[in-house]
C-alpha cells in the first residue's frame, strides 16, 4: 500500500490496516458461517442417502433433506448478510442512509423469518428422523425452549446494544422529514 501522507497527525499506514479490517470484519464472520453451511450440505446429503440405504425408510431420506434444506437457507442468509455488510454506503444522502440504518437495526426483519423457517425445518428433520424416535414430545419441548431462549437472548442484546441506535435513527428521520 502506498498512501500519500497528507496529514502528519494521521498515520495513514495504520489507517490502511483499519480500512481493510473494517471492510472485511463483519463480512468475514458471515462468510465463515456460510462456508460451514455449504460444507454441511453435501455431508448431510450423503448421511441422508446412507441412512436411507440402511433403513429403506423414505421418511429418513425426507428428514435428511429437511436438514439439508435448513442448512441451505442458513447459507443463503449468511451470504446475504455478507453482501449487506460489504455494501454499507456512507455516501448516500443523509436521509437515505438513516432509513437504511433504521431498517438494519429493526428487532424483527423479514430476513429473520427465513432463519425461523430454517429452524423449524431442522426441528421437523429431528421429529421425522428414526434416529430421534424416542421421547419425541420431550425433545420438542427442548427444541421449543431452545428456540424461545434464543429469541429472548437476541432481544436482550438488541435492547441494550441496538435499540438506542434504532431510536436515534427513527428520531433523526422524523426530524429531517418534519417541516
Amino acid at each position, binding site marked *: 500500500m502506498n498512501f500519500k501522507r*497528507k496529514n502528519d497527525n494521521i498515520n495513514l499506514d495504520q*489507517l490502511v490496516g483499519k480500512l481493510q479490517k473494517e471492510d472485511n470484519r463483519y463480512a468475514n464472520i458471515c462468510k465463515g458461517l456460510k462456508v460451514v453451511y455449504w460444507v454441511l450440505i453435501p455431508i448431510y446429503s450423503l448421511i441422508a442417502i446412507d441412512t436411507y440405504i440402511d433403513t429403506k425408510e423414505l421418511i429418513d431420506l425426507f428428514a435428511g433433506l429437511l436438514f439439508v434444506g435448513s442448512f441451505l437457507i442458513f447459507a443463503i442468509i449468511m451470504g446475504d448478510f455478507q453482501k449487506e455488510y460489504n*455494501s454499507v454506503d*456512507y*455516501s448516500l444522502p*443523509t436521509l437515505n*442512509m438513516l432509513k437504511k440504518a433504521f431498517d438494519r437495526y429493526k428487532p424483527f426483519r423479514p430476513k429473520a423469518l427465513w432463519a425461523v423457517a430454517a429452524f423449524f425445518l431442522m426441528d421437523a428433520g429431528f421429529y421425522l428422523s428414526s434416529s430421534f424416535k424416542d421421547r419425541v414430545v420431550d425433545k420438542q419441548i427442548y427444541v421449543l425452549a431452545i428456540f424461545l431462549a434464543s429469541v429472548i437472548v437476541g432481544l436482550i442484546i438488541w435492547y441494550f446494544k441496538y435499540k438506542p*441506535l434504532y431510536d*436515534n435513527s427513527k428520531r433523526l428521520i422524523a426530524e*429531517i422529514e418534519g417541516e
Partner: protein
Amino acid sequence: MRTKTYTLKKEEHFNQILSENSERIQRICRYYNSNTEDQKDMYQEVLVNIWKSLDNFRGDSAISTWVYRVAVNTSLSFTGKTFKQMKLIVNTDTQNLSSILDDESLETKHKEEAQFNQLQNELNQLSVIDKALISLMLEGLSMKEIGDVIGITEPNVKVKIHRIKAQLKTKLTGGVTYEF
C-alpha cells in the same frame, strides 16, 4: 492480477480525493469536536467511510458534495462517540459565519466576544440535524447542495435554515418569540 489493478486504482482515486478535500474534511471535524484527539478520530473515521463508499461514487454529484455527505453522515455515526458528544464548534475566523447573523445590527454585535460566546452556546443547543445544516451553511454550500447532502428538497432546506436563523435571532435578541 485484476484485483491488484483494481486496488491500485482505488488507492489512486482515494489519494486524489484526500489531496483535494483533506482541509474540507478537517474543517467539518473541527465543527464537531473541540478536542484535537477527537478531531483526529473523526477525521480517520471519515476517511474509513470514504474508502468503504468509494466504489459507490458514480459521479452524479460533485466530489466535494459527496465528501460532505460522507463527513456529515459520519458525524451522525451511530456507533462512534461523536454522536453522543456532538457539539458544533465555530471559530471567530470561520468563513460565512455572518450568513447566520444576516441582520445588520446583529452582524455588528457578533464581533463582541460576549455575543460570540452566546452564539456558540445557542448553536450547541441546536438539534443534531440543525447542527449539520448550519455546518454545511458555514462551509458556503448553496441550499441546493445542502439538500443534496441531507437528502431533502431545496425549499425544505430553506424553511429549516430560516427557522434556525429565526430561533437564533430570537434567543440572541433577548427571547422575543418569533412568529412564522
